[in-house]
């Protein structure tokens, strides 16, 4: 390689290394702000090295698994409350509105709202997360024991199990 090309190559690689270092330092510093949501553990026990606990009244997003059997619906209105967990503490979410189709117990969700007490959130928006696994219903029934029921075709025999 002739010296001029070598010089240009060195310059370009120095530029790339410099920008990469700057970008990674920036992202490292912003790590906590880039996270879309708090997990229940982070919300209750604090996040990061300083164990910072969000204050009551703060607007935030919380993400976790809906605890089995924790969904309580108000029969009169659209109010619903449920608990979220990531294996540690539980956080209660209150919400009024229509939940996304994928919302079900055991499903990962992200809720945006205001923290009303140490482990309670009044949500204004509930989004469903889905995992990266794709499989046909028969396979899911075999592997996971999940029975898929089309909500439009629920018959009496499966209406109890069809969540």
């Amino acid at each position: 390689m002739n010296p001029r090309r070598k010089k240009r190559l060195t310059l370009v690689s120095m530029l790339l290394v410099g920008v990469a270092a700057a970008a990674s330092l920036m992202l490292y510093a912003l790590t906590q702000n880039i996270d879309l949501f708090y997990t229940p553990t982070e919300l209750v026990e604090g996040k990061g090295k300083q164990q910072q606990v969000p204050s009551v009244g703060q607007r935030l997003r919380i993400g976790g698994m809906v605890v089995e059997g924790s969904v309580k619906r108000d029969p009169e209105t659209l109010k619903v409350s449920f608990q979220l967990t990531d294996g540690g503490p539980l956080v209660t979410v209150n919400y009024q509105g229509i939940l996304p189709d994928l919302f079900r117990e055991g499903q990962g969700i992200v809720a945006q709202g205001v923290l009303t007490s140490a482990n309670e959130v009044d949500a204004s928006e509930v989004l469903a997360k889905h995992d990266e696994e794709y499989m046909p219903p028969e396979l899911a029934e075999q592997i996971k024991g999940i029975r898929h029921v089309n909500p439009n075709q629920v018959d009496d025999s499966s209406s109890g199990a069809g969540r």
Partner: protein
Amino acid sequence: MWRWLHPYAKAEASYRLLSRLLPWFACSAVVTLLISLVWGLAFAPADYQQGDSYRIIYIHVPAAIWSMGAYFGMAIMALIALVWQIRTASWAIAAIAPVGAAMTAIALLTGAIWGKPMWGTWWEWDARLTSELILFFLYVGVLALYFAFDDQKAGAKAAAILAIVGVINLPIIHFSVEWWNTLHQGATITKFGRPSIANDMLWPLLLSILAFALVTATLIIMRLRNEMLFNEIHRPWAQAELGVNPPVAVSQQETR
């Protein structure tokens, strides 16, 4: 070792090569795209959770993969254009950028269409979605810089620098779902270990990824051929390709 590559620094030689390759790429792109989309959209089984809505994966995932793949190719061309100052490489930047931007736009749009019924929102400022949007802006920025200068060489140089700097965004897009908690789920196939998708669904997906690669390549080849002709229009070989008389001959006729 690289000696066989040297003739292609000349636009004439690489134009001939691209012209020979183009029909093969174009035909196989059309065939694989048709097969994979019909297979994926009509014959693959429905998902246990998302039902038929998941089928948009057969467009969303290949477009997203090649939006990043095209960027990587563009960055390599930018490196060659900067260090070895081969003009064909700098034209390739202008040829790749719009194609990559289109792939990014397809990925963003299909992602929004998929997100609304499944997540419950068209858009969320999570790390994966935001970094993919930045990729789109990078493409647009490279393209804008390329054509922003009266002197084409200066434009190509500026665009090449931006293209190389923007390469930092590629690992950020890929690992965003691991480094931060996001609404977007983790990787299904581009990870170590077994893909977490049933085989009946995986094969059409792999075929559609191949199809989108061929479509991207075909479009880039077509654009690069045009760029070559456009930039070398005063050269005899380009005029011979286009079937026009050299302007010299025309002016001689006029003076006579």
